[in-house]
């Protein structure tokens, strides 16, 4: 069947008669790839522009309107050897990119102003004795000329946020920042008018520069996690076969589906959207949806959910809910409730801010009152009080957490963990209990062939090569064992039965037991069977959910971190028991519905535990949202990934261990940084209260504390190999 692919959803029309599309590209990892893709695409007539962005593995293509179909671009890339998936960047990145550019512009302006004002200030400090008062005033006025407009521009992120917080009746970290900067600038102008010796223009603008560094890092980290997650969702985006009005079948991205569409779902394909079976009969595997590994038979009229795998026959499906709506209504309700509960979590930075602002403001007020009572003029008392506000401005505090988060998210990325939220690091670190889902989490997402002892390797190779010609999921598992990846010529598939081909002049068959005329071997209760016959030789292969290769090792190592490990599965208890035994996990429960999982988590939280939930299915999504922290494998359904705090890549379980250890290390450093900032204040505040702070001292103290905190954050380091506590000693 020749099919057309409709990707018009992703094409943007530019004003100059060209069309543009963005794609996430798989497998770009060297300079050669960039060149191959760009020059390869530019040879296609009509394509005017192709540019690979290596940093985020994306490709921007432009062509003259009407000259090329978007599907041709994907096809051209496939010919060169790259798989590419279109996506709509504005839907993925939102306005984050514009915000980030604005922050960099603020940073540049603040940096320029800080350097030039500092140049003038250093002259004042150095020439303190033999500089005439007129020259000093001139330098102060020039400083004001630079600093005031620069602060008005570069301070916008802080002033805006502080104003919003005040209007909402609260106080955030930006309130003391805005107050400190404004007062410092105002005081300096007044002092300059009065021909005073000290002005604080340099402090105010350097402060803004450091604070913007912290703000930008925070933002860059959120953008990076967002970009990686955006690529992932594009890479995962499946295609659906949709019936058009004229009866033709067209391939469309799942995002383009609408309720009422009629789809064709062939054996071996995932169901792309929720719907009702309109025709055909088949067996579907709903393990991603419910965790149940037994297959369910469906016929016309049955409701099936997105993410189920079609095993046996071709189905016609009428879509009832697509895209964002693709989920069970009650699961959605559960998620909403669970998310509301979690948003009560307060970040470390916010808790510090809540403590910080009142303390600083009280200290400044007490200083002013104290000096007024002690005798000097009101002018001196106010100058000293403002110097307290300047020196306590939370430079180091603003860098303390974002710097650690950026370094930690880099380390986690190397370990194969992509974060959905920055504060997830704090929550991973606090976890004392890990709850695993079984299917697809502790086990591999795809079933594996269990090769029994005594199987003839030549027979296995034959069967595996023949399996390459079949679309059936069991055959796909068998095909992974094939050493030679070339399918046998002339293989024919009989839907619902199996494949047959002539091998060395003898007919070979692969498929159901009846199709191959063989008998089942005993002890296959928890496995699906696929049979093979080649002439007189027969074999029966058991295909079952296999544990991730390092599952036992990682579970042992996690236990070494004093974590309580449990399993909550939606699968039958008989299927969970052997897994739990193999991993040595005593606390396990099977046959749980989504609501049961939430209830189990609520019971654990009521015990005062902080739970890290690791799961992949639609049935896990509410639990992932409810748990204190959560992780999902990359193979998970979109909904579960969207609810998890992080996603881990690959076929190993080790990233879970890395997530916990790196998060704990980072959390320790975050707290250390907060203490460093507090110690700095403990030293600097008495000096300021005593009225001894000059602009020079303020500049040195603020810069050195910021640099110290940043250097400390670098100690998060790289991921270390998995090992249990005993091995490390």
């Amino acid at each position, binding site marked *: 069947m020749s099919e057309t692919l409709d990707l018009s959803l992703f094409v943007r029309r530019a004003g100059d008669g060209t069309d543009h599309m963005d794609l996430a590209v798989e497998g770009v990892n*060297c*300079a*050669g790839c*960039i*060149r191959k893709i760009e*020059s390869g695409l530019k040879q296609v007539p009509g394509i005017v522009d192709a540019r*690979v*962005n*290596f*940093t*985020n593995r994306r490709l921007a293509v432009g062509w003259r309107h009407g000259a090329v179909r978007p599907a041709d671009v994907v096809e051209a890339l496939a010919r060169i050897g790259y798989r590419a998936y279109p996506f709509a960047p504005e839907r993925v990145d939102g306005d984050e990119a514009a915000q980030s*550019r604005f922050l*960099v*512009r603020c940073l*540049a*302006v603040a940096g*320029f102003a800080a*350097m*030039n004002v500092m*140049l*003038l200030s250093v002259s004042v400090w150095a020439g303190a004795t033999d500089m*005439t008062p007129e*020259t000093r005033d*001139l330098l102060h006025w*020039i400083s004001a000329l*630079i600093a005031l407009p620069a602060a008005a521009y570069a301070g916008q992120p802080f002033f805006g946020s502080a104003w919003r917080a005040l209007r909402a009746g609260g106080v955030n970290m930006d309130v003391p920042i805005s107050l400190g900067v404004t007062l410092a600038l105002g005081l300096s102008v007044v002092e300059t008018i009065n021909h005073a010796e000290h002005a604080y223009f340099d402090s105010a603008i350097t402060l803004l520069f450091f604070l913007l560094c912290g703000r930008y890092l925070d933002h860059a980290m959120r953008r990076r996690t967002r970009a990686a997650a955006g690529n992932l969702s594009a890479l995962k985006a499946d295609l659906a076969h949709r019936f058009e009005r004229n009866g033709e079948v067209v391939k469309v991205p799942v995002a383009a589906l609408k309720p009422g569409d009629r789809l064709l779902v062939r054996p071996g394909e995932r169901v792309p959207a929720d719907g009702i079976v309109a025709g055909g009969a088949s067996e579907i595997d709903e393990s991603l949806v419910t965790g149940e590994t037994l297959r369910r038979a469906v016929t016309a009229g049955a409701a099936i959910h997105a993410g189920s795998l079609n095993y046996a026959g071709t189905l016609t499906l009428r879509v009832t809910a697509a895209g964002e709506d693709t989920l069970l209504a009650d699961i959605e309700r559960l998620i909403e409730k669970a998310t509301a509960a979690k948003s009560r979590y307060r970040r470390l930075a916010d808790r510090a801010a809540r403590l910080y602002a009142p303390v600083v403001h009280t200290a400044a007020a007490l200083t002013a009152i104290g000096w007024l009572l002690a005798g000097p003029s009101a002018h001196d008392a106010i100058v000293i009080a403002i110097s307290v506000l300047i020196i306590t401005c939370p430079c180091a505090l603003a860098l303390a957490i974002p710097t650690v988060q950026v370094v930690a998210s880099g380390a986690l990325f190397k370990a194969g963990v992509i974060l959905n939220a920055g504060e997830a690091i704090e929550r991973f670190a606090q976890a004392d209990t890990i709850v695993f889902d079984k299917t697809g989490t502790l086990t591999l997402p795809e079933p594996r062939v269990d090769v029994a002892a005594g199987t003839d390797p030549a027979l296995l190779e034959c069967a595996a090569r023949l399996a390459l010609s079949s679309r059936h999921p069991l055959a796909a598992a068998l095909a992974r064992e094939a050493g030679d990846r070339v399918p046998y010529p002339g293989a024919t598939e009989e839907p619902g039965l199996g494949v047959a081909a002539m091998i060395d002049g003898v007919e070979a068959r692969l498929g159901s037991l009846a199709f191959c005329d063989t008998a089942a071997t005993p002890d296959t209760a928890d496995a699906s069977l696929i049979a093979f016959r080649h002439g007189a030789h027969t074999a029966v292969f058991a295909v079952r959910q296999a544990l991730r290769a390092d599952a036992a090792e990682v579970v042992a190592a996690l236990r070494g971190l004093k974590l309580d490990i449990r399993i909550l599965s939606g699968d039958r208890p008989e299927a969970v028991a052997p897994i739990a035994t193999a991993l040595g996990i005593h606390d396990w429960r099977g046959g749980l519905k989504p609501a049961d999982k939430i209830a189990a988590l609520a019971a654990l939280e009521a015990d005062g535990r902080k739970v890290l939930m690791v799961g992949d299915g639609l049935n896990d999504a509410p639990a992932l949202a409810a748990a204190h922290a959560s992780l999902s494998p990359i193979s998970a359904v979109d909904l579960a990934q969207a609810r998890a705090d992080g996603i881990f890549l690959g076929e190993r379980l080790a990233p879970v261990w890395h997530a916990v250890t790196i998060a704990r290390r980072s959390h320790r450093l975050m707290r250390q940084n907060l203490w460093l900032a507090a110690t700095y204040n403990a030293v600097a505040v008495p000096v300021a209260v005593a009225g001894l702070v000059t602009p020079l001292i303020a500049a040195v103290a603020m810069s050195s504390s910021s640099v110290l905190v940043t250097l400390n954050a670098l100690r998060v380091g790289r991921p270390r190999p998995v090992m249990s506590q005993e091995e490390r000693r």
Partner: protein
Amino acid sequence: MIVLLYLIPLALGLGLVGLGAFLWSLRTGQYDDLEGAALRVLSDDDL
């Protein structure tokens, strides 16, 4: 101290040129693909 009258504007002017250059490079997307730029050097063909 007459020297200050042209040295300070000169210093400020140089600073502004730097700021302008940075903002220009930002607007033209020079920082969009930092890792790719390092690799593009390795391909021989100019255009």
